[in-house]
């Protein structure tokens, strides 16, 4: 899917949305659409495209592990995969080394 989007739109970049009406989803934009800022953290790459999250947002989320998946049904947002009739989905897991105390 990422390869298909790259062929159609050129180099890509992912940004993790914080929630609200478009959901807690990864947004897939063209690389030039929105340059990453000094405050964005690059979590890694998927399909060769960088994946960013706002640094403060990442801290508040507890710096979880992200897994990105694809599901049926078009993304309703500005995210490019919507044009292919699918939407990217974020699944998160708490970091393996848990520094927070378990709830009593």
């Amino acid at each position, binding site marked *: 899917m990422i390869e298909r989007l790259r062929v159609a739109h050129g180099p890509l970049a992912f940004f993790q949305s914080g929630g609200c009406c*478009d959901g807690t989803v990864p947004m897939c934009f063209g690389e030039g659409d929105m340059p990453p800022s000094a405050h964005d953290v690059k979590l890694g790459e998927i399909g060769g495209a960088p994946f960013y999250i706002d640094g403060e947002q990442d801290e508040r989320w507890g710096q979880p592990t992200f897994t990105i998946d694809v599901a049926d049904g078009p993304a*309703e947002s*500005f995210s490019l995969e919507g044009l292919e009739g699918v939407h990217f989905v974020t699944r998160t897991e708490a970091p393996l080394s848990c520094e927070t105390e378990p709830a009593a």
Partner: protein
Amino acid sequence: MATTERTAYAAPGQPGSPVELAERYDNFIGGEWVPPTTGRYRANVTPSTGAPFCEVAESGAADIELALDAAHAAKDAWGRRSPAERAAVLNAIADAMEANLEALAVAESYENGKPVRETLAADIPLAIDHFRYFAGAARAEEGRISEIDDQTYAYHFHEPLGVVGQIIPFNFPILMAAWKIAPALAAGNCTVVKPASPTPWSILKLLEVIGDVVPPGVLNVVNGPGAEIGRALASNKRIAKIAFTGETVTGRLIMSYAAQNLIPSTTELGGKSPNIFFEDVMAADDAFLDKAIEGLVLYAFNKGEVCTAPSRALIHESIYEPFMARCLERIQAIRQGDPLDPMTMLGPQVSKAQLEKIESYVEIGRNEGAELLFGGERPHMNGGLEGGFYFEPTVLKGTNDMRIFQEEIFGPVLSVTTFKDEAEALEIANDTLYGLGAGVWTRDGARAFRMGRAIKAGRVWTNCYHHYPAHAAFGGYKQSGVGRENHQMMLDHYTQTKCLLVSYDQNPMGFF
């Protein structure tokens, strides 16, 4: 309140419904209904059953260009009209909406899933009033004169920007359209509006009602995928401003496009609004306590799909047990059902994707140690609603560092915590990325004032919540966006200042 048992409204297109339904709907461009250049249409679903009920245009970038052509053709004449003439058009819009209030309310409820009691009592009346407010604001606008010296004067005029682009969300399709369109037109601009993909249709029913009273090309609506036409509109060199309400990363993208084109932008983004209940709300078992209880339960208003949803309740530890007990009673009494039934208080979420996301957040909350106090599941619905996108009103108790306190869930899920004193309440309230709304509940006016001034949010409801009257400025601090809506000050966002610097001195300056 005594109510007669009214039966549910018939669905649009059904016998007895106030709403007519066609099979497919085009774009509204230049005062006409224009098919999309793509020739493609997309099924539009009602969240109460999950079933499609009509098709709406699935446009491409070329349709945005057509809309911009129409807007540019209309902008000079519209911009030259007197404020009184523009106000007359806005008032005519309001009158036409009022004459069709019930039909618009039913249409919006059916498409979005919000209860018809809310659209009848809040959404549509507020939208109508918004046009009337900006009709008045347009006529009350004035420029300023600066006297530089007795022969030199600066005359300041507010001039329209020309053509603007406006992108609106799904949660209040008609009200959000009114919030954007009214000030843009009042200030003398023409607009191209892109509705949200889950709710492309109820605004078209609005256009059917008001299309005749607006000069052709002044108001244009194009439906289609955000990734293509949202982009085509926001990054277009032919708009003088972009306005956006939606989520935060997309808001950044919009501002990035605006920066590339050197145009102004206003954005209204996400929130995680704290609702703070001090111990004195329980000082008496009176109407005010009842109001405070309702104030907490307002997290379920519009199924929690509100950027300013009071999704974090902060309750003073000394009253937590009795206050929460009263609130849970009230939550238990929430009637969930068909949004077209006037007795329904909680409708379905707008889409399956939203429903799945809400579910995953409840799981995240439980995994991080939050205590489930109420709800947490999809309810079993019957009577044809089995396929609807329903979620139970839910309450989770935890601490502010949990993800369910930090992230915007956008559903009927309340995260509850306690605090010991004013300082801690303030610290918790401000410990968030966002700054859109907040609620403060106390019988102590001085404390209310202190808290209100110290909370970093653009709208602090004090002894109330979810009021959105015109003439009360609304907008975000921090990551909740830039700009203020619902107030005359918005006209500044939609105009530019022309300074005529005039010299009546006949003599040269002496430079050359």
